């Protein structure tokens, strides 16, 4: 199912990045990235492994600090926030990890309760249970509520990871390789879930992937990260109509393999 193209209001950027640079030792990963993400869109960031896609969303969520440049999320400059302000911002920015990062000593219920209990300390047990059940239903895994993460499949873990993020009702969702390591059918289910989440919770999303099927099915806009900078941005068709050899080789590799 290819996502229906919709009109994006380009006057309302919720994430704005200018001249972002990030290096690890001598290795320069991001070399002056400029990017704007608009309210309500699904932006897919494509690129080969090791091009800094995950680093980009870790900087957006404040897990990594930029070496240079400006990163503004929901009008706040991430690198200048105090710890308390950053915590407050993080309640509005959900992060779904590549390996789900579920707390392996807790059940699914405890995993989902954890961010809720810690950030809304006045909630009653009944309300917590209702929130947990609602969000589990949204990802279609109500039956797993008492299971441990080790008892779940890779696709189920991804869904629970997304549910744990959704429970705080974020305005922005950051997905790190949501379909990596999954079989094609589960990939389709995850892609559909990303679209459903966007429609139901009205989130703005950045989806990091190197899976072109995922990009085509979930993205309103594609941005291709090559050599530490965005080489090209546009709709899926616009991006892959490009004559740039690097873009073409990426396309050919994905769709001819």
């Amino acid at each position: 199912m290819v996502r229906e193209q919709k009109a994006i209001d380009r006057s309302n950027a919720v994430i704005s990045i200018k001249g972002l640079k990030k290096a690890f030792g001598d290795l320069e990963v991001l070399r002056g990235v400029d990017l704007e993400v608009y309210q309500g869109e699904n932006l897919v960031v494509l690129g080969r492994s090791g091009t800094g896609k995950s680093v980009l969303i870790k900087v957006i969520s404040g897990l990594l600090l930029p070496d240079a440049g400006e990163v503004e999320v929901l009008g706040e400059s991430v690198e200048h926030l105090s710890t308390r302000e950053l915590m407050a911002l993080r309640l509005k920015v959900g992060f779904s990890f590549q390996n789900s990062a579920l707390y392996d000593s807790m059940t699914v219920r405890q995993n989902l309760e954890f961010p809720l209990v810690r950030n809304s300390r006045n909630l009653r047990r009944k309300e917590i249970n209702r929130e947990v059940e609602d969000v589990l239903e949204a990802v279609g895994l109500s039956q797993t509520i008492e299971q441990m993460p080790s008892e779940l499949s890779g696709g189920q873990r991804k869904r629970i990871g997304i549910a744990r993020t959704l429970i705080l009702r974020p305005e922005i969702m950051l997905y790190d390789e949501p379909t990596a390591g999954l079989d094609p059918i589960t990939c389709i289910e995850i892609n559909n879930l990303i679209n459903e989440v966007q429609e139901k919770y009205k989130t703005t999303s950045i989806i990091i992937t190197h899976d072109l099927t995922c990009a085509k099915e979930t993205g309103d806009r594609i941005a291709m990260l090559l050599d530490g900078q965005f080489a090209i941005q546009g709709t899926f068709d616009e991006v892959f109509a490009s004559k740039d050899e690097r873009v073409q080789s990426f396309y050919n590799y994905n769709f001819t393999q």
Partner: protein
Amino acid sequence: MDPNTENPNITPRKYVISKKLDSMFFGIYHAYQFVLRFFREVFVPPYEFKEIIHQCYEVGYKSLPLISLTGFITGIVFTNQSRPSLANFGATSWLPSLISIAIIRALAPLVTALIAAGKVGSNMGAELGSMKVTEQIDAMEVSATNPFKYLVVSRILATTFMIPILVMYTACVALMGAFLSVHSNEQTSFSMFFSQVFDTISFLDIFSTTFKSTVFGFTIGVVGCYHGYNSSKGTEGVGRAANSAVVAAMFLIFVEEIIIVQIVNAFR
């Protein structure tokens, strides 16, 4: 920097030594920052009471069987090993006094701390290390929870509170073991044995043991958490974190023991 091409005066051997020194001083500075962060965060709300109690249960209650067995055996073995030397001077009646000093001043704190370093320290190193490499700590951070406070501060507080209690418990169990040995060989009564034990130990002994145990507990918590929280390089890093947590904690416990004994002796 390649020592062969960049600077002809730096031999490969000098280069390796300088790199190791560099990394050692960086490690000390990093650990210092870690301890400083603990003191910065421990007094600032929100307080993680529930997690602290859970960790106290993990550190204290779950260590009881091992500590009981080790303490009991230590008491019996030390008594049996000391008896022949005292018997040479016809001084076996001094056994309870000798045992109480040895157990309260040195054996109970050391044995408990070393066992806790092995059991609790390695557990903390491995648990936090595995959470780090599987991005669970990052997940906590992005869900607006301070992982340092939740994971590290609670664990360090738990070991700092629980090790002194475990040490007192070990001392009691070891004294019971020693009593059984003394009773079966010298037919000393329970009341006679323990009145001699309590006559020998002073307030300074109890105070210094409690203080020492608190320092040991803090050390075990800090070292275990530091190695786990800063582990890297996947599963190999987790194993290394657990191993380093035990080795470093044991080494520091002996160093602290020497220093504290010297200080306490100055007050005797």
